């Protein structure tokens, strides 16, 4: 069922898009529409106004700062992200996550903004951005803010986004010498959601000492999960025992439920295993 008075708007500027969203309490943003179309089709959402961001100017660029930071516009597609030379160089985990989402048709349409706001905990992009300490720039009726992604997800398919707010840009801070990786395991077809995905980012000094580390998981709970124990690798030359401690913390933090992709216990074991693999890949 869709509202009989449903309308489709195609604003050309961010200001117009925000006005269109604020103008109807039942308005929703459409990025690539890959999830919106599905939800509409199955009657899971009943908006009255679709505000498509596809023609909004200025949201479709990837910019690399001189310091090695990245600014990624909200309508950049996952296919553009996966193919971007600066993203592959400065934040490989992000390119790897984007390049593994679904199939080429999903990646050609799905946007960074939609991939963040959809907030399905099995999605690939959120853990990569969490591990990279990214922030999301948000614009809305109350102005602009830029919270760290760490507090962005508040529950299953819930975020801090207020009605009529948009993600306009995602910023990935510079990390000189940072290594990052995203690995995932899909028990069904390659295009399926992962049972577990793991993103790791590790910074080391010239002597090999870890100066910062982060790890985040997809599929391990109601929200994408940051594992704070990874931060304790800082100040060390990590040995297998240190990696094992983070893997144990990941298993303990995983609150995944049993479903067709595996039992809760299996997913906990997989959270530990893919934590090990992601950290080793950054440390080897």
């Amino acid at each position, binding site marked *: 069922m869709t509202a009989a008075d*449903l309308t489709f708007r195609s604003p050309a500027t961010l200001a117009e898009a925000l006005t269109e969203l604020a103008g109807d309490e039942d308005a929703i943003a*459409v990025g690539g529409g890959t999830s919106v179309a599905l939800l509409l089709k199955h009657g899971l959402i009943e908006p009255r106004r679709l505000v498509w961001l596809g023609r909004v100017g200025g949201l479709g660029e990837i910019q690399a700062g001189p310091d090695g930071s990245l600014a990624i516009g909200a309508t950049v597609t996952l296919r553009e992200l996966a193919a971007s030379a600066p993203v592959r160089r400065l934040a490989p985990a992000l390119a790897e996550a984007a390049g593994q989402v679904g*199939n080429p048709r999903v990646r*050609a349409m799905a946007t960074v903004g939609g991939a963040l706001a959809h907030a399905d905990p099995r999605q690939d992009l959120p853990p990569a951005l969490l591990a990279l300490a990214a922030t999301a720039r948000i614009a809305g009726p109350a102005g602009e803010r830029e919270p760290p992604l760490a507090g962005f997800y508040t529950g299953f398919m819930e975020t801090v986004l207020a009605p009529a707010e948009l993600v306009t840009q995602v910023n990935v801070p510079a990390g000189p010498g940072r290594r990052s990786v995203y690995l995932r395991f899909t028990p069904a077809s390659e*295009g399926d959601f992962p049972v577990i995905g793991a993103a790791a980012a590790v910074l080391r000094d010239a002597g090999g000492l870890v100066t910062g580390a982060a790890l985040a998981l997809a599929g391990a709970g109601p929200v994408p999960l940051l594992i704070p124990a990874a931060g304790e690798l800082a100040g060390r030359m990590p040995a297998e025992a240190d990696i094992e401690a983070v893997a144990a913390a990941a298993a303990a933090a995983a609150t995944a439920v049993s479903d067709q992709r595996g039992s809760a216990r299996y997913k906990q074991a997989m959270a530990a295993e893919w934590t090990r693999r992601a950290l080793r890949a950054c440390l080897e």
Partner: protein
Amino acid sequence: MKLSFTLNGEPVAADVAPDELLVEVIRGLGLTGTKQGCGVGVCGVCSVLVGDRPVSSCLYLAACAEGEQVWTAEGLAQAEPALIRAFAEQEGMQCGICTPGQVVTAAALARENPAATDAELRQYQAGTLCRCTGYQTILAAVRAYLDSR
């Protein structure tokens, strides 16, 4: 609402609902090569090109096609005979249900990554399911097509 776009090189105008899907519009215009299979973006039989992007027309809001160049398997068969020849010569089909999707996907790959390695080709085509061929002849057809360009 009014929608104008170019379909297989010809301008079209249609009246569509705001939540109408592109697959419905295309089939409504009599082009039935584009199929509705799973309806949830997984199988690929509804694939069309919008500009240079492959999309699942079962999950693509028709309104987003305003002003775009849309290509279906029928149009590609006319515009790129080498593509169809490769599928025929390599016997890249059996029942034929998935063939329009395979063809559109191959055309998308040729635009996105014309120098695709065999591994990249496999990964790209993997999103378009086939229940007959076992895929090898499809992969051979796409390989032959890419090599012929």
